[in-house]
């Protein structure tokens, strides 16, 4: 790729200009009985940025995402979404507020085709009632066609034309992950939460996925919060990184800052006691 020409244009045409704080998490604490999953965690997410959450196993990364989209309700702390203060989120409200996500363990409808799975991502955008939809009549029909077009755009974007009619259960893992991203994109989210989008992939699949994440961020300006174990990926694509360990925040900053942070090094490499 012709790097020098891209860098001088990055400032001009891109949808990606890191904006103000869009999501602010203040002093979040979450416990299940005696287990403290998250302790007093604060960090924020700016508009259009790629924000990574990293940490060893059991650090509380997925819990953090679950707090953001309302699966878990934290006992303490507040969530500020676009200036709106809340004690917690609820799933439906989060979806309506433009937050979409993918899951660590793929949560697609295995028996449905790729296209149908992506169409389910459009669910919130569908206005006509289910009776009209069932009859496929009038406005419902027009609506379905419009949504189908959007779904096809996503299929085109993710280059999965060849499998659009294939039941998801028959696809290899890497492609299922891509379909799940497609379903999240179908909701046209403003904030996209990705829970280990590259887990279990080979190098080539990882490269593809990175490309797609960067493209989503660049073309649609989508803010991305992602959890990832592959440090190479995290350091390459994210703008800022927050590091959790045993439910506590131990680092926050640009990839370079985090890489030099002694607490982070200790958490990952262990420390002599």
């Amino acid at each position, binding site marked *: 790729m012709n790097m020098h*020409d891209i860098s001088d244009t990055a400032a001009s*045409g891109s949808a990606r200009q890191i904006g103000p704080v869009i999501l602010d998490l203040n002093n979040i604490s979450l416990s299940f009985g005696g287990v403290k999953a998250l302790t007093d965690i604060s960090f924020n997410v700016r508009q259009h940025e790629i924000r990574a959450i990293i940490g060893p196993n059991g650090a509380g990364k997925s819990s953090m995402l679950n707090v953001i989209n309302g699966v878990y309700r934290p006992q303490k702390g507040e969530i500020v979404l676009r200036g709106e203060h809340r004690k917690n989120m609820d799933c439906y409200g989060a979806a309506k507020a433009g937050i979409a996500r993918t899951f660590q363990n793929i949560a697609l409808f295995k028996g449905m085709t790729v296209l149908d799975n992506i169409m389910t991502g459009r669910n919130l955008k569908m206005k006509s009632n289910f009776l009209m939809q069932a009859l496929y009549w009038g406005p419902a029909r027009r609506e379905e066609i419009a949504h189908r077009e959007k779904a096809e755009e996503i299929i085109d974007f993710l280059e999965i034309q*060849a499998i659009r009619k294939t039941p998801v259960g028959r696809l290899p893992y890497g492609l299922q992950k891509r379909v799940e991203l497609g379903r999240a994109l179908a909701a046209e989210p403003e904030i996209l939460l990705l829970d280990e989008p590259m887990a279990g992939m080979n190098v080539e699949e990882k490269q593809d996925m990175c490309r797609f994440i960067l493209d989503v961020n660049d073309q649609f300006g989508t803010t991305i919060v992602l959890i990832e174990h592959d440090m190479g990926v995290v350091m390459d694509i994210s703008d800022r990184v927050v590091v959790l360990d045993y439910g506590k925040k131990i680092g926050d900053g640009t990839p370079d800052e985090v890489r030099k942070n002694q607490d982070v090094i200790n958490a990952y490499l262990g420390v002599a006691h």
Partner: protein
Amino acid sequence: MHTSDGSQLPTFPLRLMAHGEVRPTRPAFREKHLGIWQTWSWAEVNTEVRALACGLASLGFTRGMNLAIIGDNRPRLYWAMLAAQCLGGVPVPLYQDAPAADMAYVLNDADIAYAVVEDQEQVDKLLELQALCPQIRHIAYDDERGMRHYRQSALTSFAALQAAGRAWDAAHPGAFEAAVAAGSGSDTAIILYTSGTTGKPKGVCQSHASLLAAGVGGVGFDKLTDREDILSYLPMAWVGDCLFSLAQALVAGFTVNCPESGDTVLTDLREIGPTYYFAPPRVFENMLTTVMIRMEDASRIKRSMFSYFMDVAKRCGSAILDGKPVSAGDRLAYAVGSLLVYGPLKNVLGLSRVRVAYTAGAAIGPDLFRFYRSIGVNLKQLYGSTETCAYVCLQPDGNIKFDSVGLPAPGVEVKLADNGEVLVKSVATMDGYFKRPDATAEVIDTDGYFHTGDAGIFDSEGHLKIIDRAADVGKMNNGAMFAPNYIENKLKFFPFIKEAVAFGNARDEVCAFINIDIEAVGNWAERRNIAYAGYTDLAAHSTTYDLIRDCVDKVNADLAGEALMGATQVHRFLILHKELDPDDDELTRTRKVRRKFIAEKYAVLIDALYANKTSQFITTQVKFEDGRVGTVSADLRICGATTYPAIARAA
């Protein structure tokens, strides 16, 4: 039927305009966009091409220039070819999957200043080459995806170029018509670069006249009409695609369908249901394998139905297709089979509507060929090369011999040189290599015959049989012709044999090295509970030798029955202890055997074969995929094969 109006329209642009008038609403191109097939009629294509041609003209593209076309099969890239021709320029399609460095040679050799490419990938390659090919001034791209951040002045989108073209057209009335009128049949219509397996790629210049002659000939031969549908998925830089999707499409006025992407070809094939289809043998083989695997998993009733009716098809299918007499009982059984098996099967494969299907490019196994013909797919072979517009020999309907490439096509004169080399003379022969009169003189003699480099023989009915590369053909000590490739292909048609190398030039007998197909033989061994540790172990197994010996015996029996080939039966063979590999320089990257290298590397084995030994020890160095080097050694058994007395047959 369409051959009569050909003579008045000597160039492609004139043909295009004629279709715009004769059949303005017939579909000319289709492409799938966002899951829906989009259609352009001949009238619309005329408008599009005109806008594009004027766009190119507004950038200064003019008569005598070359336009590079790089990308997958896209309607817009075909239009770019026609647009260049409208202005008297020459389209030069390049292989879209070639790395940038390989493209540089062609781009420089063809003096490319203008390029129309498919997408960001190709744009990146051209930009990367700016230092090597500074003469490239303008690049137009079709797919705008990912192109938002590119600010180079050389770049224009296809749509912007057409918009500029419309403005230019309005400002220069009559200029487009004048440019088209200036074209003549003797102008170069296209430059196709040969793949360059032998030295640097050479640009083959085909004139409008020769390309159209090949188109007219093929269309007339197979009675193609403007109702045909073809699926264009083979590289645009390849002569076959040029013949089918450009020459024949513009002669007959049929519809060219472009698949959504390389991965969707099989789905698109089913949706389009082409009536005229071309695929290399590999594609047909993959289709058959898929069918067979799915049949293995089918229920017992379906399986028995399939096997029963496939037997019926084997017995009488080809004969019915060829219009030969078949008993009423067989006809009835075949009709039932069509309803229950062949019809649904063809539908699944997307071959329901196929009237004519061609294959070429490599030897096709007789079983594979017969399978498709027996279920009613009119699969035929053709023979040609880039230099002859892929138009030399065609198998005529109803007169198919699976081991020949058919009769010389209408208007083509084919003869054999003394050394067996096939010589061709026709209107469809190239004008010459671009800027290479020396290379042209090497292949086209003073009488106008093109030397194909292939060795062939004619059978009693005048069908041409290609046996080998002329350079590889040798003579045995008894004077018989020795065509190693011919023997090797026969061996390789057995699924158990992956690779074979035959020796016999200047020898008394033919001997061969065999590589087993580890998957097929491994599977076979598993079913027989034969334990093995890996390739070397399995290859040395005595039951494997018995298996391969059976195959060699069958090939010998086959060779004994053929004129001129009876003397080249395989007397002894051995199974190599390692697979021949491009990493060890034993095969080319396109998996062709490097004979000389192998003969030197394994000289000790060849000596052992001819010294009548029963075994030979050898240690060989091998390169692993990660670059490490190791050695493999084995004591190889040498096995004799049954030979048969040659059956004398009148040639």
